[in-house]
């Protein structure tokens, strides 16, 4: 009974809090630009509206066009449930769950790319290509970051990997993970969520043909992925394990808020990179994580 209640509370946290983050980012961008900006709860209104709308399906698309967003959403939710939430811990933890987590994100990528190619359109093709190609480098950086945490704590279970402090390499790891966050969530400087020009998009190009409930699933999934990466980044950098539960929860929330504001500032102050430079920045992220790994190696040598 308590376990069921706990799962429901966790689900509520992930499902209900996730759409807040894009709203906050838009508010920060508006503030920097001197505008008032859309309401913070705008994504909630959008999701509610989309959920009621009908669907226009391309004549070329198979049923996988609708199944894809559903599977991607479930995969992101599964990854989110495997991530510890600060003092609240995690619902399910077993040895090697961090690898399941990384590959659940890969499932989401596979499904969105497949659904995008269903339309037989060059725009979605462009988006899919960029997404799956840049993911190769982002994955290298993410695996290196996971290895750094693993070396520091000596475990491969997420619950114990995130708890202690990341040590002196925390800054490097944070920078590397922040770049991975920007890449995986299609933020400036890798992708611009504002432009709807297909030639310059990655994520937005892939969802051009979706409408109605599948589009709502995709947008909500993207918001959950953003919350997931923000929580991962915060817990990898801040020593939440050393604090009492309530301060730890407050620190986690403050960390996620700080990451969100940071994304907003980066989006306002930087321009999107030319696509030929994106691999360079991703390699930089990989190198930052690699240096964090080397520092963890040196730092906790037996």
């Amino acid at each position, binding site marked *: 009974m308590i376990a069921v209640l706990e799962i429901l509370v966790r689900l509520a946290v992930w499902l209900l809090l996730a759409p807040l983050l894009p709203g906050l980012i838009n508010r920060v961008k508006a503030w920097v630009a001197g505008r008032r900006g859309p309401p913070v709860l705008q994504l909630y209104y959008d999701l509610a509206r989309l959920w009621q709308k009908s669907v226009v399906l391309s004549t070329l698309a198979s049923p996988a066009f*609708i199944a894809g967003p559903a599977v991607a959403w479930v995969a992101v939710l599964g990854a989110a449930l495997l991530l510890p939430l600060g003092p609240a811990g995690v619902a399910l933890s077993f040895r090697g769950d961090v*690898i399941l987590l990384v590959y659940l994100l890969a499932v989401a990528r596979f499904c969105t*790319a497949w659904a995008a190619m269903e339309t037989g359109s060059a725009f979605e*093709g462009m988006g899919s*290509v960029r997404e799956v190609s840049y993911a190769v480098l*982002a994955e*290298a950086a993410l695996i290196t970051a996971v*290895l750094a945490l693993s070396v520091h704590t000596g475990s491969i279970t997420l619950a114990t990997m995130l708890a202690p402090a990341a040590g002196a390499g925390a800054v490097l790891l944070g920078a590397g993970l922040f770049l991975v966050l920007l890449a995986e969530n299609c933020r400036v400087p890798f992708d611009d969520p504002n432009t709807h020009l297909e030639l310059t998009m990655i994520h937005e190009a892939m969802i051009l043909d979706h409408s109605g409930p599948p589009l709502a699933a995709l947008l909500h999934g993207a918001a959950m992925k953003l919350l997931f990466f923000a929580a991962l980044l915060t817990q990898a950098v801040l020593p939440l394990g050393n604090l009492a539960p309530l301060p730890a929860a407050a620190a986690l929330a403050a960390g996620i808020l700080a990451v969100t504001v940071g994304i907003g500032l980066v989006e306002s102050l930087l321009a999107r990179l030319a696509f030929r430079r994106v691999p360079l920045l991703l390699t930089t992220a990989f190198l930052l994580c690699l240096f964090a790994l080397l520092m963890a190696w040196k730092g906790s040598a037996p």
Partner: protein
Amino acid sequence: MTAGPPLLLAALGLVGATVLGRSQPKTWLALTLLGTTSALTAALLVFADGSGATPWDWRSAFLVGGEALHLRLDGLSALFLALLCVIGGTGAVYAREYWADKQFPGSAPRGRMWWSALVLSMGFVLLSSNGLHFLIGWELFTLSAYFLVTLDRQRHPVRAAGWLYLTASHVGTMCLFAFFALLAARTGSWELGPLREQADLAPLFWLALLGFGVKGGVFPLHVWLPSAHANAPSHVSALMSGVAIKMGIYGLVRFSGWLPVPAAAGWVVIGLGAVGAVLGIAFAFAQNDLKRLLAYCSVENIGVILIGLGGALLGVRYGDAPWGRLALAGALLHVWNHGLFKALLFLGAGSVLHATGTREMSRLGGLWRTMPWTAGLFALGAAAISGLPPLNGFVSEWLVYLGLFDAVTHRGPAAAAALLAAIMLGVTGALALATFVKAGAVVFLGAARTKAAAHAHECGPLMRAPMIALAVICVTLGLAPVLFWPAIARAVGVWHPTWSAADTTAPLATLGPVQLALALVFILGAVFLWRRSHANGLRRALTWDCGYAAPTAHMQYTGGSFAEVGAGWFSWILRPERILRRVRGPFPTGAGRFERVPETVLERVFTPVGVAVMRLSTATRRLQHGRLQFYIAYVVAGVATLGLIVYLGETP
């Protein structure tokens, strides 16, 4: 019951199938299925044998080539035998419709005969415990596979592929001849068995690595694999990619377990594995021929298996570490998994080839509508090979990751190698995902690019049933890996007896239910979203095309464009050839762009060496000119040199 009677039944069935294959297709299929099922039963008996103390062992009374036949079935060979039986049986059913007598009156009877011969000879190799008979079986297996690859020998690319396969295989067999001969010389008999105490056998490992590596498709010895697997009939490609290259892996695993290995063995194997995995999938990503893409992907997966084996060798070297056990378990499970989903993918590609007549991805497209089963099963295979949960590919890669991560956290001397291998494995996984989104999407999704693709038809029941069977096994392995763990643990125990204490099913015990729950929620989510979309109202319209008035199928993204970004990073080794006919003049007649990714190691490394050898031979042949006076001079010079040697060497 011992494994003896089923194996005898299997042998009789397959021999009967080989003899009757040419004339009676139905009897052939029945006998082949009987043979493979009996052998599978034998393998399952070995797995079920709880004590596992002594493997099934049989020596014959008669001599073959001067040695008594010595057959042995233990946990390790049973693992490979089970895979052989599944793929051999499903491929035989597939061949009944795919390579039927009606379309191929000349080659279909031959194909049936050689198929049973190949399955029989591979089974013999797995069972034989005598070096001489191992070699005989190996050669028979090579030849049967050659005749199967060149079934469609009217076409020049097929003949060229067969020739390359034969040459490369025999280079490997030469190394194996040397290996077994030296082994027999040093141990005094042709008998094979655990011989870990004899340290002077260690350098023979390099010969074994070369010989088995050629057959296994280890990078850079894989040069025969792409053309052979692409040009062979699809069911033959499935058997070769699924099982034949695993014979190379079997040899490596078997002899690194029975014989001592040099100190550097683990490092070399894990290095070859990691490099082969990344480069193999990079080559696959750049291909535009569906079966060539799948062939290069086999090189990648052999690399993954070698990463696991290398990890195990390093674990043994550095104190019998338990992480080596996990790495080997992952490698052996990946042998099964890759055999299954690669066979599924090749059978799917065969279905596409059968329906459209082309392997070129740029001529396909939109096949999901006319071939829904093939499309769905190929998509399942693509998800499995990308290592996505909740399918079987993820389970084996997860085990290898666990082994590598444990090696890193234990901080031993092997930690650096494990670190690099783990990062390269991650890159490989992401590239494999990209490759299979490309393969599946360009072939099955969107609109048909040519008339051939538009007029495709779904394959018949005899072609669909094997694919469905393989898909079911893949899904079962993914959702309930604990069922298969005892077999893997026993094989690991056979390889390294110190590791036979089967303690940990714990890693898989949680993963299985989690994958099952994931699969259920995936299906529920998809159904729910589908029903919601229909409830809201669903109408069909043209894909949004930015207001372009006349979109055509050629405006879709092509396979080449899909791979452009990723393949560009690897262009230093891919070296694509581009032929560009530009648009010229005010009234251009035509323009075109042709791009081909050659087999770089073959064309840049082996072919120049071969050309140099031929030039040297041609130069040497100038000595053979037919003039008697010079020949007398050669004889005089030779005798004089001999005399000089004797004169100089006389004084003790």
